[in-house]
Every structure is written in C-alpha cells, then in structure tokens.
C-alpha cells in the first residue's frame, strides 16, 4: 500500500513534492463472502405492527457449506432502550439481561410485541417532561428482537443478530391536527417480494445455474414488484409538516464461493427501476456455490432467497 507512485517519483525529478498516499488497511474481508456461519437476515412478518400485536420471525442463516435449514435460535425482545451515549442500534444491555425472553425455536418464532414498545422504543412518554425518542429518517421506531443462533457445527460462539419490528406509535411533538392527519394517511409497511433471480453470462447467453462454466462472470438480477417501493407519509421534524416519501430498496449479495463484484446494490428513492444487478464470478473449480440474496426496503421490510449455482 505504502509505495511511491510513479507520478510522485516524477514529481521528485522535477523538484516538486513527494506525495504518497496514507496506508489504508486491507482486511481482505468481503461482506458478501460467507466464510463462517452468519445470520444474513431476520424477517419479521408483518414488518410493522402495533405493540400488542403478533408478529412472526424467520431467519436466514448461512454457513460456508450452504444455508442452514431451520436454524436453532434463542429469541428475546430487547427490553432496554439504548442510552443517548450509545451509538449503535441497540443497548449493550440487550446483549445481557436487559431482554424479555420469547423462547427457543427453530427457524423462527411468533410473539406478541410488548405493550410498552412505544414507551421504550418509540416517542411516547409517561410524562410530558420526558424527551421523546427520535425516529429514523423514515419516521419509524423499531423494537429490537434478539436472535442468538447456535452454530450447528458446535464450534464457535453463538451468533447474535437483531431484527427490528417497526412499531406503530403516536406522533410526538406534533400539533394535534397533523397527528390526526398522519394517522389517517399513514400506511403500514409490508415486506417486499423478491422475484425469482435471473441470471445470464456476461456478454450474452443464458446461464443455467446448475451448469456454469468455471470462472464465468454471471450477471444476476434481483427484481421486485413495482408496488414494493411503497410511498409513505412522514412527519418531517425539520419542516414540521407531513411529506410523502418513496421507499428505497437495496439488495445484499452473499456467496460461499467465487465473488460478487459488489457487496450491495439497490435503488434510491428517486430511481423508478424495479431491479438491481450484480456480477458474480464463479469459482475456478467444479463445485456448488450457495448464493443468498436479501432484499430490504427503507422501512425495515425484507425478503430473501438462496440459490445454488454449480460450476462444471
């Protein structure tokens, strides 16, 4: 990394400055490469619900040898909101005892969202003297659901992941008329639908996923329905008005062999396309690779799929 660039050497020759880059560490770690048992997605159905309503959860867990069917997990609601001093998504207490256990289950579970959700993780407060919590940029509040997944191989520590149920709460710090209008206009989020993955070889030609040439570059397309990029009302705290936004959608790509050109891709709010593409370079050996594709919308909805691709 820390080398003199040719231009820098020329600069020296010309009596100018020697300027070389700082050293940026290369971990050799791709987010899209699965080299250990990982939780890739926690799907909550419905993705948005009121406290007291039931939701179901499901997991996508993948190991280097492929997706794990019905992985065993210990589930719990996070019961401790994070402090203002905490920068992450959840309170550190939710890694220890600050949870409300749901139980152990394989693959997923069903549970009723705690009734205190809007007080603990939303904007509602017991007293007008208490500062309401801030929403995210989509106006949402989220109740963390912890999944502690045991590595089926028995090696290593359990993998901890958090899914987030978007909770329906009253608006805080909003005039009553706007709050009423918001309640009337807002439509809850639904999970997007990931349409079948399309594949073709780069440069043309269809790609049969069970017979991909070694080292081939395969263009994969993940698509969703037009209605999956939902429009939704947001109470904009800056303008103190209700505005309408459209969901962005992003796709996370994972593989157990070969490599993706990009780890993530997607469409921003202003992009009308209903697909995103990525290039997967097949391994140079004959083997079966497991590709995982996770589609997420801006309000916490998700869908996922796994496919096997065999190189010959």
């Amino acid at each position: 990394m820390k080398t003199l660039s040719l231009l820098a050497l020329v600069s020296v020759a010309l009596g100018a400055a020697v300027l070389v880059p700082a050293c940026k560490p290369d971990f050799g770690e791709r987010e899209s490469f699965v080299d250990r048992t990982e939780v890739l997605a926690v799907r909550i159905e419905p993705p948005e619900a009121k406290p007291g309503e039931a939701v179901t959860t499901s997991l996508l867990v993948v190991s280097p040898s492929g997706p794990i069917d019905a992985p065993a997990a210990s589930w719990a609601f996070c019961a401790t909101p994070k402090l203002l001093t905490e920068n992450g998504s959840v309170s550190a207490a939710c890694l220890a005892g600050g949870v409300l256990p749901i139980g152990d289950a394989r693959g997923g579970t069903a549970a009723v969202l705690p009734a205190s959700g809007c007080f603990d993780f939303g904007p509602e407060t017991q007293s007008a003297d208490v500062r309401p919590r801030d929403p995210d940029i989509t106006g949402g509040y989220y109740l963390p659901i912890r999944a502690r997944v045991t590595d089926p191989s028995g090696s290593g520590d359990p993998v901890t992941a958090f899914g987030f149920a978007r909770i329906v709460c009253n608006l805080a710090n909003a005039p009553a008329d706007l709050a009423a209008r918001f309640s009337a206009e807002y439509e809850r989020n639904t999970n997007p639908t990931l349409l079948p993955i399309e594949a073709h070889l780069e440069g043309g030609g269809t790609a049969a996923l069970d017979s991909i040439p070694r080292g081939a570059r395969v263009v994969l397309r993940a698509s969703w329905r037009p209605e999956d990029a939902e429009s939704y009302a947001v109470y904009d705290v800056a303008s103190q008005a209700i505005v309408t936004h459209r969901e962005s959608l992003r796709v996370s790509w994972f593989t157990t062999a070969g490599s993706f050109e990009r780890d993530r891709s997607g469409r921003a709010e202003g992009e009308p396309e209903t697909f995103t593409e990525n290039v997967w370079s097949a391994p140079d050996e004959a083997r079966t690779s497991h590709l995982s594709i996770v589609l997420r919308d801006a309000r916490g909805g998700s869908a996922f799929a796994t496919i096997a691709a065999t190189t010959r």
Partner: protein
Amino acid sequence: MGRASRIAASAGLAIAIACIVRPSLAQRAGTDVGGQPARRKVTKLPKLTKFVEAEYPADAKAAGVEAAVVLTIEIAATGAVANVTVAQSAGADFDAAAVAAARQFVFEPAEVDDKPAPAKITYRYSFTIKEEPPPPPPPVNVHVPVPVHEETEPDHDAAPAPASPAPPAPDTVEIRGRPKARRETNQTTIRAEQARKVAGTQGDVLKVVQNLPGVSRPPVASGQIVVWGSAPRDTRVYVDGVDIPALYHGSGLRSVINSDLVSSIDLVPGAFGAEYGRGLGGLVRVETRALPRGTHGYVGADTLDGSALVSTELSERVRVAVSARQSWLDRVLSLTSAPDVGDFFPIPRYRDGQIKATVDLRKRETVDAVLLGATDDLTRTVPSPDPASTRSEANHTGFWRAYVRYTNVSDDGDTAIVTPFFGRDSSELVQRFGPTPARLDIDSTRYGVRASMRSKLGSMVSVTTGLDTLGTDSDIAREGSLTLPPREGDVAVFGQPPGDEYAADTWRTNIVDVAPHAYADVRLGPVTVTPGARFDAYLIEGSRKTPRIGQTPSIGFSRLETAVAPRLSARWELGPRLAFTAAYGTYHQAPEPEDLSPVFGTPDLALSRATHVTAGESLRITQTLSAEIVGFHKTMKDLVVRSRLANPLLARALTQNGEGRSYGVQLLLRQELWKGFFGWISYAISRSERRFDGDESWRAFDFDQPHVLSVVASQEVGRWSFGARFRYASGNPRTPVIGSTYDARNDRYDPVFGPQNSIRIPAFWQLDVRVDRSFALGETTRLLLFADVQNVTNRENAEEIVYSPSFRQRSRITGLPTIAVIGARLDF
C-alpha cells in the same frame, strides 16, 4: 585627578562598534530579531549626556584591584534612568558603587522612527586605575521597546556585555512596535524568526506551537490544540487580544495568519492571568508585528499553497500591509496520490487574508486597524451502488475579524490599550451516511472590546485594570443524529456510522460576557507577586427553551451567570540564574451555542469550571541555555457531557455531570540563538482523565498522551540553514471492540465494546528535517529556497485503529509517509 577611577575606554569603544554594526547586519540579512522586522529603524541610540563617576571602593583601590560591573539600565522616553540592575557582578562593593552612579546618569532618549522611545541598555561599568580621564563610552546591547512599560519579568533577551571585546551577535537590538504583553508564569514564547526555521512547520511560524511543552500531538490533518489535558475547544486563541475561533486551517497544515505578520507567539498551557478567561484550557496569544517603513514584502509558493505580502508607507504617519494565501494541496494530491488518501485525511481548500494599517497619531500614540479572514472548504462524495452506503460531506468554515487597537503610552510609562472588534464566524457541515443526513450550520456574530490601563505605582508596584467583553450572537440549524458531531467521551470506533435517529432544530443564542479584571505586579526584592481577579458576568439568552411544536410560539430564556476568578502568580529570583515560580487560578467557560438546543442539547447549561495550580523552577545555565521544569494540576467540574439516560427530561440531552483532572510535569531545555544554533528539548509526562459525576473510577481523556517529547534543532551555516525535529508521543486512548452483533435492518455489524479508553493507538515517533538557502539578489532582495521533509525514516505511524466490517479483525491506519514540501519565497 591622580589615580582616579574611570570607565575603561577600550572596552567601551569596542562595544560601541558592536552596537552600531549589529543593526546594519541584521538589516542586510533581512533577519527578524526579537520577532520584529530589523528594517524598523532605530534612528537614534540613547546617548549619555550626564555621566556620574562611581566612587571607587577604597579597599579595592588601595589594593590596586580593578573590576567591571555589567549593568542593565532602563531608560525612560524622557531620557531619565528608570531602573538599574546588576547583570554581572564584580562583588558587592563594586556593584553598589556602579549602581549608585548609574542611577544618576542622564541620557538623550533613544528614538525609533525618529520618535523618543524607552530603552533598555546593558552597560559595562569598568573600574580601572588610570591617570587620564577618558570620555564616557556609549551604552552597549541596546534594547529599545517602543513604547514600553516597565517589565516586571526578567528580560531573557538581554545579555550582559562581554567582559572583553567580542564579535557582535545578531540578537542585540530589539524593537517592539507596541507594549509587550505581560509575561505569564507558565508562558513559552517563540520568536517568529526561529519558529520559521523549525523543521516540519514548512516555515509557518504558528505551527511551532505543536512542538512546545505541554502540547499533545494532534492527529494528522487536524488543527486541534490540546494542552495539559484540556479539550481542544477549551483553549482560546487571541490575536492582539482579539479572540479568533482557530489557530489553524481545518487540515492543520497552515495557520490562519500569515507568518510575516506575526511578531511572536506565546503559549500558556494553564494558570494564566486575569486578563484572559472564558476557557478551561490554555491560551495562545499571537502578536502581529509592527509594520516597517518603506516598501517591503514577499511572494512565496510551496507544495501546500502560495502566499504574498506587501507592506508600504503611505505617508509619514501611515503604513499598511496586505497579505493573502491560497491553498492548492488538494489539487496537488489529486495528481500525485492515490485517491484513498482523501478517505482518511481529507484536505480542505483553504485561503486567508490580512490587512493591517498603522497610524501614528502623536508621539507614543498609535492606532492599528486590522482585518483578518480565513475560510476552509471541503466537498467530497464516496458514491456507492448501494444507496445506504453512499457518503457525502460538504464542510465550510470561515471567520473574519476587524479590530482597531489604540495604544497610548505616557511619558512615565503608563500604558492604555483599547481594542474594539467585530467579526463573524461561520461553520456549515453537511454529511450524509446513506439516507440519514447530518447538518450543523452555525453563523455567529462576535463583537466586543478589550481595554486595559497599566499604571506604575512607585518603583515596586504596577497595577493593570481592564475590561474584556465579548458578545456572540448565533443562529444555528442542526439536523441528524444526536451522536453526530461526536463529543469527547463518546464510545465509537473510527468510521462507525452515526445512529440513524433523526432530529432537527433551529435556534438562536446570544451570549454576552462582560469581564472587568485587575491585577498588580508587586516586586518585593527578589520576589514578584501578581495577584489578580476577574469577574465574569455572562448574559445567556436563547430563542427556545423547549422543542418547537408546530406554530406554537417559542418560549425563550435569558439568565445571568456570574463567576469570580481569582488568579495569583509568583516568581522568586534566587539569583541571576535560578527562579521558582508558582501560579493558581480558577477559570470558567460558558456553554457553546450549539449545546443550547432544546432538541440536541440543554438550554439550561451553566458555566463549566476549572482550577489550575502550577509550580516550577527555571534555571539559566548559560546566557543562552536555560532549563525549566513545571508541575501542573488541573481539576475540571461541570463539564458538558451527554445524558446517560435512555429517556432524559425534555431539553436535557446534555448534562453537566462531567468531571476532569489532569496533572503532570513538563521539562524544557532550551538553547537560544548561539553561534547560529538554537533548539530545545521538551518533554511532558502527564495524565488526563474524565469521569461521569458519581463514577468510582476515572477513564483516560480521549486526547490523553502520557508522554510527549519534542526535540528541535536548527543551525545556520553561512547562507544555509539546517533543521531537524524529532517527536515522540503516546497514542490516544481508544475503546476496544470485543465482539459484534448483526443489525439485520441496516445490514451491518455493530461493535460490542470493552472498557472505555482502555487501549491506545501505538506510540508515534517521527523525524523531520529542513534545509534552506538564501540568495542575495541585490541590496534588498533575497530568494529563499527550502525543503521540509517530514517523516524521513518513512515510519508507519499508526494514526487510528480500524476494524473490518464484521469487527473480527483489527488494524491501523498509518499516517503520511515521507513527504517533502519544497518551496521558494522572494523577499523584497
């Protein structure tokens, strides 16, 4: 007269030649002496018009013993002798006789630019047994402060005359364009000309502050100043007594003031006097230089930027200087460097300019009008096909100040200075991490006046009274996460996205501080005591006490916070070489306007407080070699920190539960200019800690550096100058990551942290060298070429700890490798 005592004509004559020759040498070389332009004309040296013969000590005379006493004589602008001290003793009898005689001397006063001026001379009084009476010799080693008030501190610039004729040293005439600022007990002063030659500063005078004792090493590409374990924002920077927001441009590569307009720079890391306040940390004082007569200037360029200055004499009474600078490093880097350098060390585009005009109203009465301005701009975008990974940043900061400084020095040395000022600070920060924006805009109008009157009450006491006022009227808009911008004490890792919570607020504040103050310099024999006190009355107003809800009218607030800050310092001279010092003071700091938001902060924040205590010793080993050791202890209370609650009360996101302490010892071994060489070794061992009120244990302060060592050396050889700088510093503390969890909504890992600030970035050391050569291109034109090579050993210093996306791997970002900044400047 028989065998009468007389001044030794031979020695006196030799020294007189030295006095005459030295200014011309300095002028020809274009050398700043004492931080001032040598071109400033000493139009007349003080002339002895009434010589009084000393009474030869009878015993010595009988024994045929001859001797010489070197005296320091302070001469008022009237020509009368104001004070006489012994600089080099020849024994008690000879000393007493010489002092008694010198006190009766009368001079024609010195003149600077044809105006009578107070002066300080070094006078060698020789007792010889001769028959013939030679005429009295002229003085030697003239120091001409213009105008001047009596200085209570030892004048470290004054050197006793050599016992025998010696070649003239370059630093013998000192010209000051204004009353010298009071010397603080813990002050380190660097002359501009020396500072310019320090390796690693690229000729920037003010960057030398980073190498002074008590100053922690700032992160690369950072202009932060951390002194004695205080937060960067707790240290105040003044130019001619006027507060400015920062000493350096945002990159830390350059200071915001042209070096050729700087006379001297003082660093006071703590326990400063009553003239200054509003900060819990240290003090940096920059004095602009007096403008020379005639037309002078320079044009310079190097890898970082280009700059120019021109000063001219518009009339007999009016002189003006204009300077400007424009950076181009960002464009040079884009040509010669890998693009990823900007990911870690973004280089803003900076520019600054200054205008200074001096009007001589009457004798010893001047008005300086100064306009300062500087801006920094940075725009960068890291695009990504993933909308959640796109990052962008646009940052603009700038300020300007306009001030008028009126100075009046009476015949008896009483000095009045009044400096009204006005200006604006602006800061616009827009960042976007994926979909979540972060914005902080601050636009402040700053105004005030600093006034002081120094009066001498007898020979032992002088009293200074003053008024220091500052008003800051700010309009602020902020949106984004509470955790961005970060605060000291935040637990995060480098590059970690801020929380995705989103809030917004706009508010206005007005903070006015009126601070009358007074202190006295009391000289009690070898002890000088300076008691003082400062009374700060802060009017703190805000437009909003609670968050805005629709069109509901906002409820503002207004309150008065007061603080009395006693200050005390003392210096005990145990002889001409050894002195002990001690200082104590309490300090207060108003909340920052951006912390008074009812959404992001707390409108009810009060003053933060600190107490400084220092004790030290200074030893003059030789006339130019000195050693200092200072121990310090600071305690800080009511520091503003984030609330630790999950759901704090409304408009209470920040609290004043922070406590701090720092303590340590610093040493400075300093060689003043001697045979073309100067340098220093500074070392500080310290500890700075913070805790939340009620916590049992302390944690390391985010900028804590227990060991900081700087070695600076420079040697002139003819027209060549060589310099080197070595720095060693402990790494800043960091909080280790001991695990991670997966956030399935944002598709990223969050770190799980270990004990806060329990590990450190590896220690830093670096060697920089500098070489320059000057070429005379005529009578008054000079070309200087220089090369300033940083990190000559190409050491891979760690600047930050970073983690892989899953936090399973830890590594380091290393700083810039070998960099040569090559430049040239043409002086005329």
